[in-house]
């Protein structure tokens, strides 16, 4: 069956000559015509923060704007994620580090706690209902796990086919997941740290201006050895990063043994 669709003819866009941009690379400068996405403006205020829990730091890494990251947080260790530039969505997926068929389940997390938002004390559960991590500290009113990840494909629905070339979080998850043997079928509904997705009374739902700020943090205690994938969201078509992609800081701590968390009470 061939379908004829009355689609308005788009205005052709001609760009001659091909624009080029200068990029800083580890080896100097590169001139490129690749239309990579935006990075934060020069005058952006950055707060690099500190670990949210006292203890020995075992890993401390930065995630550049638009980039992906992964790491294993051992049972008992605490991962602090710092929203360095403010309102920067850190799209996040979790897996049992030893058996990745067991992975984060947004639906089980929400059904068990009987609430649609992630807050201090939320247990991040797997598709088997088990605790993967617990939100032991959190400096944002509520965190999102409804809004999912952006992708090249879903961007065509949300904004139009002219943005299909933009980089997206699903691309980052595929890049990072491939390092751990994970593929398309392993990408499920994720968490969006520092992103704001309210559900209104009539069911209206969407990504709105964030409630975070430079230096705001969340801390996650691993209940089992957990593989964490992060996409530092490159989206430039909605407020999930204030239209100004900034870095994230990932700090893994071995917390002091006598530490008591309010989240556990």
């Amino acid at each position: 069956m061939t379908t004829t669709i009355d689609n308005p003819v788009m205005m052709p866009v001609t760009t001659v000559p091909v624009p080029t941009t200068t990029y800083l690379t580890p080896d100097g400068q590169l001139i490129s015509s690749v239309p990579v996405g935006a990075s934060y403006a020069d005058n952006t205020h950055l707060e690099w923060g500190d670990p949210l829990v006292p203890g020995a730091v075992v890993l401390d890494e930065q995630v550049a704007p638009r980039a992906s990251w992964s790491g294993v947080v051992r049972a008992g260790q605490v991962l602090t994620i710092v929203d360095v530039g403010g309102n920067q969505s850190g799209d996040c997926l979790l897996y049992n580090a030893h058996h990745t068929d067991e992975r984060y389940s947004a639906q089980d997390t929400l059904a068990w706690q009987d609430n649609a938002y992630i807050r201090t004390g939320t247990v991040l559960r797997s598709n088997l209902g088990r605790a993967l991590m617990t939100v032991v500290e959190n400096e944002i009113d509520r965190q999102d796990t409804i809004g999912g990840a952006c992708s090249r494909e879903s961007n065509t629905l949300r904004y139009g086919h002219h943005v299909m070339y933009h980089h997206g979080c699903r691309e980052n998850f595929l890049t990072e997941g491939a390092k751990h043997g994970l593929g398309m079928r392993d990408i499920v509904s994720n968490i969006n740290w520092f992103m704001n997705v309210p559900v209104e009374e009539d069911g209206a739902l969407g990504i709105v201006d964030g409630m975070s700020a430079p230096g705001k943090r969340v801390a996650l205690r691993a209940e089992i050895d957990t593989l964490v994938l992060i996409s530092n969201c490159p989206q430039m078509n909605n407020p999930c990063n204030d239209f100004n992609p900034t870095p994230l800081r990932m700090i893994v701590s071995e917390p002091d043994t006598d530490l008591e968390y309010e989240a556990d009470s």
Partner: protein
Amino acid sequence: MLKEDWVALAADHSTDTVLNARADARAQGGQVSDWMPYLPASSSPFCPDDVAPDSLTWAETVAPGGYTHKVLARGTRLRLEDPTGEACAHTLVYNALEPTERLNVADTQKIPWQAYLGAGHPLLSGDGRVLATILTDTSGRHDAFCGTSTAAWNALRYGTALPEGPAPAGRDLFVKAAAKHGLGPADVPPSVSFFQGVRVASDGSFEWFGSSGAGTAVELVAELPLIVLIANVPHPRDPRPEYVVGPLRVHAWRTPETFPTTPADERFDASPEVRRAYLNTLDYAEARGL
């Protein structure tokens, strides 16, 4: 079953030789139960009034705590009915040609800017396409937040989650249904459920809406060839201490008039987002020669 009933049942059968056992087995055919598939589908005792029995391609009553699954051709209509007001149809759909394309609950809620499922709502894949569209809905009580139950949840709620027992978990049923299409446990993503609803209160807590009563139905159209998996188990937030779920009726049919959504349909242009989703779906189907 009580022991004496089992002894009585055995006494009804003469199975001491192969010929007797064969005769005994063959004598059991032609019976009906309350939950069964109807073959051919046109023989369904519950064919919807507005559907020609000869057009049916799937007719089944799914048992409480049961599951079913089918591959449906593009353009097929699928009607799920809740005859008692107690069914809960946890549902997953996959592109049958490339099952890595499957229901994406986050996109299904986010892209239409609407968390609650109802008539006109697309079931979107993660690949920017519509797998199925909800055409009609007389229930209005559905859910895309909570998913289905796990064995851990049922063990907590009901004290047992054995798959052969009285409180099977929806995820375990999905895993089996998926396996029968070559899919593994990692291929069971977040799901949606029909006929038992929740609503989100201003503080984020879920308010139990439950069922809107006996005799409601939802009808969907397959926008691509689909693998459909259905687990009929209680909603995980069903507040009752008992494990209560009713039978689910399933009918699917295809006629020369049952097209997938085309630009001639009003729903094609219902929103700019869904229009582009249908454009992507038609683009895929036509390139693939469907």
